[in-house]
């Protein structure tokens, strides 16, 4: 037995771990050690990837690439491959994953199971939109080859299916062409939610990537930083000779030792004393950078990947991330109400992200993205008072017709889950009865 924590470090329960290393042996391991759950690189925050006192099938040993077609950009790989390894191998060859979340240190299987999204949701949808085919192992011993035309139902149950329909052994992904590792970026400070929505709407057509940071403690005169980016073509990058030296510097940084949070501080470093000055300083620094710039995709997409173990910053009790999405209609009022509730509670965090989703439905039955606006915030775990605040936020999300992101959740009540995910009953039919997680036991029958 081994203690396993999720990224939020809220628990460290013992798990009976099985390491998967050979894709032809997955069903044997599953059959001999069930009920269990696939576990990738442990970057989901709550209990979606945990199965305390039960079996956990580690997938990072399934890290082989299987084939790549230079003509079509179709990559077939095992499910434990890290997105980082795909990016670093293929960007120099002119290809890239179309969708990556705020960290590239996750597995392909995890990206599928949580149907992750990125800063370009409005342009290209979520990860599942670019999964062409899957190999799914079930505890019954079956190994199924799935695609959207022959098995549309099981595909849409598995994409965003929280690992509950089987173990994704391998997947065929559509990569997209990219001319260079660089992005043209623009940073724009803004005040107030209506200005945020104006910027977001105005950027949707001409900018592939949009995201914004907000100061969750700035009260009614909300301040934030809007960031948008477009990939530079090869010609555009070559027109800037200084980028050659910058690329060498970036590669040195990537291959060198990353900074790390070396230990867990006795109390959360994010607290009432540190947060205000931190947010003020960050806002002012970003404001200085406002305007056009060029950025490498790694720091632009994955700003925190360079600080290993940053989750330790929140101290021994860990932290929650609360990520909601609410429809655009009434969304502005709902987001304002959530920010007001957070501000009034004095809780909150440095990592607060606001982003609009595009007007498209995700393919997965339990996928998180939907047309609307998503707000994500980290909260140090301060026990009862943090949970009380979440109840107030839940009420706002429920009222607005929104939902919470399962990859981040550790505590949402069952009625909010059922209200937020109306296709749940279709999903249930496709579950593998030999698979169970702490989350599935909390929110579903088993």
């Amino acid at each position, binding site marked *: 037995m081994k203690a396993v924590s999720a990224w939020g470090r809220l628990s460290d329960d013992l798990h009976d771990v099985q*390491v998967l290393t050979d894709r*032809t042996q997955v069903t044997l391991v599953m059959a001999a050690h069930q009920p269990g759950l696939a576990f990738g690189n442990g970057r989901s925050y709550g209990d979606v990837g945990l199965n305390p006192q039960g079996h956990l099938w580690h997938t990072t040993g399934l890290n082989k690439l*299987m084939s790549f077609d230079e003509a079509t950009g179709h990559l077939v790989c095992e499910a434990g491959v890290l997105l980082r390894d795909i990016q670093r191998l293929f960007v120099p060859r002119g290809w890239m994953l179309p969708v990556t979340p705020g960290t590239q240190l996750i597995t392909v299987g995890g990206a599928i199971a949580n149907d992750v999204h990125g800063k370009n949701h409005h342009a290209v949808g979520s990860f599942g939109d670019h999964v062409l085919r899957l190999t799914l192992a079930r505890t019954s011993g079956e190994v199924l080859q799935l695609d959207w035309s022959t098995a549309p139902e099981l595909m849409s149950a598995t994409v965003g299916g929280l690992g509950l329909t089987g173990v994704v052994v391998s997947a065929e992904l559509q990569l997209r062409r990219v001319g260079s590792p660089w992005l043209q970026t623009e940073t724009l400070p803004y005040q107030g939610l209506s200005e945020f929505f104006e910027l977001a709407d105005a950027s949707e057509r001409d900018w592939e990537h949009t995201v914004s940071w907000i100061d969750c403690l700035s009260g009614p005169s909300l301040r934030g930083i809007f960031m948008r980016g477009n990939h530079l073509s090869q010609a555009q990058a070559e027109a800037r000779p200084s980028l050659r030296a910058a690329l060498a510097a970036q590669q040195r940084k990537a291959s060198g030792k990353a900074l790390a949070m070396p230990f867990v501080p006795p109390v959360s470093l994010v607290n009432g004393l540190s947060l205000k000055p931190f947010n003020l300083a960050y806002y002012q620094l970003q404001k200085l950078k406002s305007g056009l710039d060029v950025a490498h995709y790694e720091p632009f997409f994955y700003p925190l990947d360079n600080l290993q173990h940053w989750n330790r910053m929140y101290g021994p009790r860990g932290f929650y991330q609360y990520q909601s999405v609410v429809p655009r209609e009434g969304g502005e009022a709902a987001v304002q109400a959530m920010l007001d509730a957070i501000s009034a509670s004095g809780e909150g965090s440095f990592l607060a992200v606001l982003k609009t989703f595009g007007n498209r439905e995700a393919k997965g039955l339990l996928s998180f993205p939907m047309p609307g606006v998503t707000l994500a915030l980290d909260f140090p775990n301060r026990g009862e008072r943090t949970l009380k605040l979440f109840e107030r936020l839940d009420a706002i999300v429920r009222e607005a017709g929104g939902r919470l992101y399962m990859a981040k959740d550790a505590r949402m009540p069952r009625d909010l889950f059922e209200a937020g995910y109306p296709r749940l009953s279709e999903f249930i039919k496709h579950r593998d009865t030999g698979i169970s997680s702490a989350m599935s036991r909390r929110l579903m029958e088993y």
Partner: protein
Amino acid sequence: MQHIVIIGATSAMAEHCARLWVHASPVRLTLVGRDEARTQRVADDLRVRSPQSDVQVMTTDFVNAAAIAQTVNAIVARAPVDVVLIAHGALSDQATCQDDVLACDAALQVNGVSPVLFAEAFAKPMVAANHGTIAIIGSVAGDRGRKTNYVYGAAKGLVARYAQGMQHRLAHTNVKVVLIKPGPTDTPMTSDLKAKGQKMASVEQVAQDIVKGIAAGKPVVYTPGIWQIIMLVVMHLPRFVFNKLNI
């Protein structure tokens, strides 16, 4: 293109070394394994990573001297060898080896005798060409016998003493012999230890040390480096202290 041969190519350490090699520049790779399908999967992965590399697969019986000789001859006939990494092995269970002489024999053969035979078979053509590097993966377990794994340790100790002698013999030639001594590393071979929660070095880190050590032609490479100090202490503990330790 450099011709690199990997014996035991499905081992996680060897596989990660191969990834580093093909990433640095296209190479001619000969992967030798026991299981054709598994070795082929490693080759497919490397071909995706480096379409310009030439990756070939061979299978052989690792504990049959005649098969080893035949395999090495076939490889050398394909192209002169620049680097050979002898990486195969099986972490044998000490209790089983104590209980069953056949298991003990198998462990000594695959971890000790077999790597030595491969090295010796490659040495002949490489000495004739006066060029190349023979790298063998030993283990910190070979430095001092311990009750928890001395059969495996003895096999790795055999490899270490053999490498030492080869280094002496080839000291004035252009053929280098590199002995690699990894500490406990997070690989499928040690997944039972990992499941019990033992801290281990990442296989990526160990592979980097191996590739660097081979490029530099270092006689002995401890990886991670801290094991050099740990084993220095372990080797010099007086017996009355050592025998009290439960290691």
